[in-house]
């Protein structure tokens, strides 16, 4: 029995279904419904809602709660996401699980605060300084808001790192039916099983993701956002530094093929659309419109934008007559697609950055300007 639900609520419900019990944040349009729901619902579940003085403190509190063993999350939008980048670096480097929901709005800076955009793609990848990994999931429906929000917790705990859910204003405020999934797994953290005296917070002898204890547990955790050794002690050794920097990246990229993506009408597609979030939704409508006119169009819906699915994009696009990247920015995803396609097919950008969504008709028309025959009949 489906329930009628808003995207932001589905993001929250998915987080709770996966075990999220601690929220710290700072209200910001267009994500504030998530904070309000957290304040209302988490205490009933024995969880905690904290409203902090800013987003720097919000993500810090989330990281602290996660170290205390409680699955923790926050929600924000572009300006707040910018403020969180400093301490997201702590979570990447010290390997502390947490989930950040960014309901994107139009920027830069305070921009068009109530209007949609998809221009935080690169911030989700490179927002904090230094070499670091990234994992970002992009819902394009209320159903996906629930499912990807829950999945973010699973990846976060299993990989010991922050996971970003990159939604947008339209998806966040969209209301449509949600089939509440049955049996959403509670995100579980691989806990240390060795004798407490043998435990090292960053000991990789049992795998590329070291088990993480929790504050209050018998295995003493020395979480360290400076360069550190297996015990969490600071070090400047170059071999230790390089091994850690590499491992932080590799633990994500080694699992690239496991992260979800969605293929629509791609088997015989001559014209391939690549998009995500609300623009994927509009692109799908455009693809179906083109199909009805006899154009062999298909859509690769990017559900996991980071790590970027380079192999998949290359495979899907290499024999295409043309590739259209559809996004609400002046072009961020398109650069990654071009790098993946490596000139095997022409890549065209269908972009918009004025606080308004791209509509299916816009997409058909602009693709037709490039492709010609059949697109705008």
């Amino acid at each position, binding site marked *: 029995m489906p329930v009628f639900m808003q995207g932001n609520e589905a993001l929250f419900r998915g987080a709770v279904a996966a075990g999220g019990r601690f929220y710290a944040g700072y209200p910001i349009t267009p994500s504030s419904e998530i904070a309000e729901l957290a304040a209302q619902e988490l*205490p*009933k*579940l024995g*969880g*905690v809602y904290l409203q902090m003085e800013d987003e720097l403190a919000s993500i810090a509190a989330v*990281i*602290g709660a996660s170290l205390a063993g*409680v699955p923790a999350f926050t929600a924000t939008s572009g300006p707040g996401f910018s403020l969180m980048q400093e301490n997201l670096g702590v979570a990447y480097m010290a390997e502390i699980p947490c989930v950040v929901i960014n309901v994107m709005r139009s920027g830069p800076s305070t921009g068009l605060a109530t209007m949609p955009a998809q221009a935080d793609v690169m911030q989700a990848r490179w927002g904090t300084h230094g070499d670091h990994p990234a994992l970002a999931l992009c819902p394009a429906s209320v159903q996906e808001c629930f499912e990807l929000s829950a999945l973010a917790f699973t990846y976060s705990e299993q990989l010991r790192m922050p996971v970003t859910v990159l939604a947008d204003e339209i998806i966040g405020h969209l209301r449509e039916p949600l089939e509440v999934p049955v049996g959403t797994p509670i995100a579980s953290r691989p806990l240390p099983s060795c004798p407490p005296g043998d435990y090292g917070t960053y000991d990789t002898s049992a795998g590329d993701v070291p088990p993480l204890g929790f504050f209050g547990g018998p295995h003493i955790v020395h979480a360290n956002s400076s360069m550190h050794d297996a015990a969490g002690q600071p070090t400047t050794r170059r071999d230790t530094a390089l091994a850690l920097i590499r491992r932080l990246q590799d633990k994500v990229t080694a699992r690239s093929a496991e992260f979800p993506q969605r293929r629509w009408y791609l088997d015989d597609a001559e014209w391939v659309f690549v998009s995500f979030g609300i623009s994927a939704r509009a692109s799908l409508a455009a693809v179906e419109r083109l199909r009805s006119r006899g154009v062999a169009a298909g859509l690769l819906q990017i559900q996991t934008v980071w790590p970027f699915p380079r192999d998949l994009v290359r495979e899907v696009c290499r024999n295409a007559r043309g590739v259209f990247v559809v996004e609400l920015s002046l072009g961020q995803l398109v650069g990654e697609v071009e790098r993946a396609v490596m000139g095997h097919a022409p890549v065209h950008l269908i972009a918009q950055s004025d606080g308004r969504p791209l509509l299916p008709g816009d997409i058909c028309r602009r693709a037709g300007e490039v492709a010609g025959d059949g697109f705008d009949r």
Partner: protein
Amino acid sequence: MVLTAKDIAGPRDRGWLRYLRSDTFPTFWCAGCGNGVIMQALARSLAARGPAPEQVAVVTGIGCFGKADDYLTTHSLHGTHGRALGFATGIKAARPELVVIALMGDGDCATIGGNHLIHACRRDIGVLAVVSNNLNYGMTGGQFSATTPEGSITSTSPYGHVEPAFDLCALVQGAGASFVARGTCGQPALLRRLFDEALAHPGFAFVEVMTACPTHYGRANRQGDAPKMMRGIAEAYRGKTGVLFRRETAGFSSKYRALQTARKAADGRVGETR
């Protein structure tokens, strides 16, 4: 009281040593630095209060005192400059039974972290905040901080500092802190008493320790060697140390727990909301 040999040697009971990682000694700190005095006093208070190291979480930031976690056997997080109280707030809110301590310098706590400091006071969550106030940024070469006295010479105020300094104890009391105390690094017995009382306090507890940086601040301002600086600091703060303010409080965690209990009771459909 001024530091004596007896204070350094201490009483026979060495239970406090279990909080310190002697395998990482010698510490990073300069000869004459007051941070070691603070660490020993804190370890003694922990030993007297009795939580096992796994029941203690220490958060540090960046700066000389930000290295303190390297020398502790407790759980620890070494994080970013100025944000220790944000991390500590999350730890305490998520697991209130833990003893949560934030160890910070004046740059960390009161300069870059000033906004977090005043809100931690207002929120009144049961974190012990210890500030090692050496009046300058020691680790990075002695630049001025928000507690550097007006007129002082530092590496970024070579002609004398033109800005006034924060009185941190007055600041945090104004911001609503429920426990405010000040000691000096030359008075370890006093520090021990202040930490004992702060650890027993259910709300936010703020302990400022005026300490010597003979390497930078002391040298730039011709304050002599470390013993002379310690005596000078104790003299300068005579009558301004001890527990300066305290009020009865339940603290954030017990109030939030009551809220959770009431909401759980009011909501019979907890299982469905999962």
